[in-house]
């Protein structure tokens, strides 16, 4: 075995860092899915009748749909009756502020490096912490409230801002958009809600941190971000889960609605448990994320660093409806061991002079499979639309796979589309050059990989970028062959 391979073996066996569970009493629904479970969830959340109806309708639609099979991923059939659809950390009182939150929960998040307490004030990031489908704490509410910004859990928004929720929920991702969005619409338990009023520039990063804790629990959260005319917000999302032998289901929906001149930047560092090195366990991550550039000159930008999950099925997309609107997608997807990722984006150009930019960097190691799937659709009315796509794949070792599936539909002849794709391997020469300068092999790979992904990492807010770099290094160090 060559030394590179040896290092590869050593490092790919590196343990998942967030693989612990917290001992918290939970309040769960029985396993399985039927109308009663949905009524149970809705009642637990004290929801208005219209929402229960909405859920039941979604459930009806879901039962008539089939799991999609077109993605380049393989997994045993999921038994949807074997999943727990509601699990909430038991809290004595509903937390009104941080003092009421169970200290165990606060500790859980502190272990993840996320402080929900005072000290977070220094970093200036407002956090909504979601554990097992329920939002446990949202920080900085008052400060944001002074600007008219609403940032709270989805459940709270349903109670306090029902008009906004009713108007926008499902307006970007329709219930029956796909199998998983329908499922989510039926059983979603919580998530984050955010509204930025006209002309307001949100002064701090808003962030949601998701953690799955309880066993056998599916996590189905919804996020809804509404950016009113001329507003701006940068939104961060992070996620982890404990190490478990069985696969857990995560099917989220994120909707972004941008009005005229509004700008939304949505960044994700996804670090769900990927399964062990034999491919046992790990999160099945089936996520629907979509932004609607409804107003003219609006802009939505997705940045994602995907390092976790056993299976990733995720295509953050932009519907460019407003004239001169712009969509961006920056992605680094890393797969190692037996991970499978099928991820990419859709850019639907409807308005005139709409622009989109796609930069996708796939990195595959071990026995993993990494696919980029992207669609660029220029509709008839989209005079002068432009797209630029760059899809790069980096391979480490010879047991993994990288695949690119670009789909391009052009219905307007004035459109300009550029597509570039490359596949490369980390070179022995590059590694040796680093070694010769006294840099060990792990750091060498970290350097090279971070260099490769730089264009995407540069899009992340500072604090997240550092975390993302560490994560990349941790997932991949030394995976050369």
């Amino acid at each position, binding site marked *: 075995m060559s030394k590179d391979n040896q290092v590869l073996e050593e490092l790919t066996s590196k343990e998942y860092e967030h693989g612990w569970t917290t001992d918290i009493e939970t309040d769960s629904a029985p396993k399985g899915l039927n109308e009663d479970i949905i009524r149970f969830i809705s009642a637990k959340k004290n929801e208005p009748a219209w929402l229960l109806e909405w859920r039941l309708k979604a459930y009806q639609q879901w039962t008539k749909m089939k799991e999609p099979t077109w993605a380049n991923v393989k997994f045993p059939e999921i038994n949807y009756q074997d999943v727990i659809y509601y699990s909430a950390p038991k809290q004595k009182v509903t937390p009104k502020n941080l003092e009421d939150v169970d200290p165990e929960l606060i500790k859980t998040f502190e272990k993840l490096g996320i402080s929900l307490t005072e000290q977070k004030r220094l970093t200036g990031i407002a956090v909504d912490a979601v554990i097992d489908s329920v939002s446990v704490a949202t920080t900085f509410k008052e400060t944001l409230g002074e600007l008219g910004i609403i940032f709270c859990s989805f459940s709270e928004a349903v109670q306090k801002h029902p008009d906004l929720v009713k108007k926008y929920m499902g307006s970007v991702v329709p219930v029956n958009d796909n199998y998983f969005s329908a499922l989510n619409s039926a059983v979603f338990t919580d998530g984050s809600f955010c509204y930025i009023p006209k002309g307001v520039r949100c002064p701090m990063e808003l962030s949601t941190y998701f953690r799955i804790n309880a066993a056998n629990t599916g996590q189905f959260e919804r996020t809804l971000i509404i950016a009113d005319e001329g507003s701006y917000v940068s939104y961060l999302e992070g996620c982890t889960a404990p190490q478990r032998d069985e696969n857990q289901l995560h099917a989220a929906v994120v909707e972004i609605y941008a009005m005229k001149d509004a700008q939304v930047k949505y960044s994700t560092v996804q670090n769900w448990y990927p399964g062990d090195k034999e491919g046992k366990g790990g999160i099945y991550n089936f996520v629907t994320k979509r932004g609607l550039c409804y107003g003219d000159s609006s802009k939505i930008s997705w940045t994602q660093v995907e390092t976790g999950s056993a299976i990733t099925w995720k295509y953050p997309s932009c519907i460019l409806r407003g004239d001169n609107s712009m969509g961006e997608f920056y992605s680094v997807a890393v797969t190692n061991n037996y991970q499978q990722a099928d991820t990419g984006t859709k850019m639907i150009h409807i308005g005139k002079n709409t622009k989109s930019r796609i930069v996708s960097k796939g990195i595959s190691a071990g026995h993993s499979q990494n696919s980029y799937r992207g669609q660029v659709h220029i509709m008839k009315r989209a005079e002068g639309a432009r797209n630029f796509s760059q899809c790069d794949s980096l391979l480490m070792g010879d047991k993994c796979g990288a695949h690119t599936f670009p789909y391009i539909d052009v219905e307007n002849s004035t459109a300009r589309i550029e597509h570039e794709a490359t596949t490369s391997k980390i070179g022995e*020469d590059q590694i040796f*050059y680093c*070694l010769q300068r*006294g840099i060990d092999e792990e750091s060498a790979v970290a350097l*090279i990989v971070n260099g490769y992904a730089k264009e995407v990492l540069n899009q992340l807010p500072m604090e997240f970028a550092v975390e993302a770099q560490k994560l990349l290094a941790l997932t991949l160090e030394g995976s050369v062959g």
Partner: protein
Amino acid sequence: MLTIKNLQAKIGEKQILNGINLEVKPGEVHAIMGPNGSGKSTLASVLAGREEYEVTGGEVSFEGKDLLEMAPEDRAREGVFLAFQYPVEIPGVSTINFMKTAVNQIREYRGQPTLDAVSFLGVMKEKMKLVEIDQALLNRALNEGFSGGEKKRNEIFQMAMLEPKLAVLDETDSGLDIDALKIVSNGVNKLRNKSNAVIVVTHYQRLLDYIVPDFVHVLYKGKIVKSGTKELALELEAKGYDWIKEEVSVL
């Protein structure tokens, strides 16, 4: 400092080094010359620990330690530096970032405290002057799109940063324009002292006009077939290698 005894190495099935003997003492400059394909870069790679080359015999001691036993990164940390004939590109990684990682890993290995960003930049600014390299170049991705000469200058900048005990410069002069050759050579000379040594691999006398060697060796078919002082280089420049090849075939 460096003692090479009967060193033999091959790549794949091809034997390239056929028993090299060389002794380098602190403060010395050795020039290694020889026709294309004679094994000069191979020797440099073997010293630096490139895995593709299999050492089939002989020994190398560096500062009393068995060099061949050491991992390549440890050889670098012990003070062996190789300026590559063909420096590789590393997209997205600036020379600054690259050097900061290298300097700090070496310092850690030596039990010295690592340098923070500010002190690192301080050291860097100083070394930049030595080889007259522009910071704009160091901010760019390592060697990516660098001209041939810029790559070579960057190698010597790295040498300045790492202050090796033994530097092996593999055709550092190739690609440098006349002025750059002078600047880079002067840089190397300024880095020389009583306790370090340099091995320069070159085809031309012009480099040796600036970096004056104490010894000149001719490598041919994987062996040092002739050694002499700086006059040998002048003789080679005038007469080429044929007479040496003939001498060898007579033996």
